[in-house]
């Protein structure tokens, strides 16, 4: 299991190709699970989380395109229509602005909608409701009307889906006061954070990743318990280290762990932080780690300008400037719309080699910037 390459079949309508995935070798060691761990995929984690929360609270309902009879565009909501019926699992027409607003209005009246966007790119058609009707309402109404809604769906680049299907919206939504923005990586993250999001009385943007849906992670019995949830606003140290801190979220956490393995062979011990929560950002954890390692590499898949890494860098400059021994390295996607050609797409998103190079730079193992084709 450790270090084995796995063939994972692409999932969902947009991915027709086979992906090779490398299991992060150090993950199990860091987690300290009980030996006889069970494994579940992120997809199963999300599905069971939705199932359990709908079972526990009858005011939770799902709304989105293809969530019902199609069993979910990416099969996340599989089986839920049969179990809960069409009153609670609603297939909508293609009307993002309309059904997002309907979800917000229902939340105003005390229901707990989970609105699915087929990808977060389509959320742009509904962004007025996410921000103006949902995020700002508790404030505008001086606390009279809270909005216990969850907006979920795949975010960021997939494989070969082109510019309009590949954008990462973490920075966009994390910019707005009144929203909570979560980005799970592992199955445990997916279960715990989705349950927390559904139980939360405020609007939560839940950024999943299509390429992680099929990936398996070991989970403890605690995680599988139906009362399990994770706190919002707390990051997780995926791997302890002492030489450089690497912050990441979503799929990039896996890449960071692979990079950490490579770096450890060179004598650089990297600490990998899985942010889990983009807003609120766990500044305390990030700063505590940087104060220990004195070097920081921020990692994200989205566009670099005004991104998550820029915010993390500023947070560290504000709170831990004297502790920095090197400039903060920012790894982000290329500042271009996502190209279609496979080799260009590889260039447009961070690869493990980029992370390794950045960490070396931060540790003064001077290797000049060089792109690989």
């Amino acid at each position, binding site marked *: 299991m450790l270090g084995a390459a796995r063939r994972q079949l692409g999932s969902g309508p947009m991915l027709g190709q086979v992906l090779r995935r490398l299991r992060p070798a150090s993950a199990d060691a860091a987690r300290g699970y009980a030996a006889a761990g069970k494994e579940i995929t992120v997809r199963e984690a999300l599905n069971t989380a939705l199932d359990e929360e709908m079972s526990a609270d009858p005011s939770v309902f799902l709304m989105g395109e293809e969530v019902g009879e199609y069993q979910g565009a990416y099969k996340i909501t599989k089986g839920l229509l049969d179990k809960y019926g069409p009153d609670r699992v609603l297939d909508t027409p293609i009307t993002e602005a309309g059904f997002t*607003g309907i979800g917000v209005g229902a939340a105003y009246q005390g229901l707990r909608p989970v609105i699915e966007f087929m990808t977060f790119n389509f959320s742009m058609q509904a962004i007025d409701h996410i921000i103006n009707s949902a995020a700002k309402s508790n404030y505008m109404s001086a606390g009279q009307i809270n909005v216990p809604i969850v907006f979920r769906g795949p975010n960021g680049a997939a494989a070969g889906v082109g510019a309009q299907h590949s954008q990462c919206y973490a920075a966009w939504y994390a910019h707005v006061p009144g929203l909570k923005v979560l980005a799970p990586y592992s199955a445990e993250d997916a279960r715990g954070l989705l349950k*927390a999001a559904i139980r939360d009385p405020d609007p939560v943007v839940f950024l999943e990743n299509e390429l992680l849906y099929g990936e398996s992670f070991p989970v403890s019995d*605690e995680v599988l318990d139906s009362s399990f949830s994770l706190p919002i606003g*707390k990051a997780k140290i995926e791997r302890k280290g002492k030489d450089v801190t690497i912050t990441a979220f979503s799929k990039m956490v896996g890449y960071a762990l692979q990079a950490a393995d490579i770096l450890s062979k060179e004598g650089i011990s990297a600490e990998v932080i899985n942010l889990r929560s983009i807003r609120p950002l766990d500044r305390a954890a990030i700063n505590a780690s940087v104060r220990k390692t004195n070097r920081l590499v921020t990692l994200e898949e989205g566009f670099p300008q005004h991104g998550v890494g820029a915010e993390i860098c500023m947070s560290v400059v504000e709170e831990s400037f004297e502790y920095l021994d090197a400039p903060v390295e920012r790894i982000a996607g290329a500042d271009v719309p996502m190209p279609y050609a496979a080799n260009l797409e590889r260039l447009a998103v961070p690869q493990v080699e980029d992370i390794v190079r950045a960490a070396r730079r931060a540790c003064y193992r001077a290797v000049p910037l060089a792109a690989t084709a």
Partner: protein
Amino acid sequence: MAAASFTAAKFLAPVAARSGGDKAPSFPAAAAASMRPLRRRPAPRLSSVLAVSSDVLAGNKAAPAAAAHPAVTREEALELYEDMVLGRNFEDMCAQMYYRGKMFGFVHLYNGQEAVSTGFIKLLNQPDCVVSTYRDHVHALSKGVPARSVMAELFGKATGCCRGQGGSMHMFSEPHNLLGGFAFIGEGIPVATGAAFAAKYRHEVLKQSGPDGLDVTLAFFGDGTCNNGQFFECLNMAQLWKLPIVFVVENNLWAIGMSHLRATSDPEIWKKGPAFGMPGVHVDGMDVLKVREVAKEAIDRARRGEGPTLVECETYRFRGHSLADPDELRRPDEKSHYAARDPITSLKKYIIEQNLASEAELKSIEKKIDDVVEEAVEFADASPLPPRSQLLENVFADPKGFGIGPDGKYRCEDPKFTQGTAQV
């Protein structure tokens, strides 16, 4: 009075011609109807209005048009009168306060449209919801939000209905089920559809039923909004899921300076209802009794679970789009035509002619409202500004995430609460 002297006549004439069996009613009917003796009718139906349904609802033919008013009791008439006078006086006071610098930002006044707000909202119960636009002061007042709370909100004081956080365009009142106050046109329509969805969900899934039927939601919006995508998305979904909502179009012919006729390929908005399978009704929005009759039918339909209705109210705003609008594009003859159809004057005339109340009683209502509005201004003036600490309050209902436990503390602080393997 000839309706031909301004551009609205172009689309109103075919509407008039189509009324119940192609008999053109006397149009404009308000002035004429108020002079007719009251005719008792066996049961109030959609009279003096135009109701056309698609083939889907072919069974529900509209009653033949007649320009008479249905019966209204003295108490009802006085309630309607008082509500409209409150709306008018309040808005006039807002204009005064704005020019004195007490009120600021964007202020959009409702003068002239009172019949729509009063005609619809006075039929609602407390659990019914109202969703409005930025022109929401009078919807708030009709729904029961105290005048002093609205005025204090407009002054930006801590005693306002939203403690000064929302302002003129964002009136929210949870106890009155006033769900906003939205600045973007069309924004309130999906939210209203969602509130109607919640009412149906409560009834069917949560099995919480009220004695009267489903709680109804009213969505108020203007003619400009009817060209916006969200409007059509919600007409579709509301009818698809048979939601208890009434879409109330306050067609005052102007969207800031854009005439409805310049902006819309087919200006007859009521026709867009049947295109989605719901009844579309056109009503004279300057006549509160006609509006009320249509409203009753539409609200009852929704309550019974028969689904949405689109009601187009022909109305007019006597002032500009907002207090910053110089209002130069509207012609004086159009303005005077509608000023002659002032809903308050019409109702007053009707009440006196039907001997429902005396002139003196109406004057005393006006005096009472004057006092209410004066008191509201004094209250707002005397109220404090919000404390500085209010700046950071209420961003989240739960700042720490995932809720407050039964002991009243944040769950994430409970040591026994499962934290998985997170290193917190």
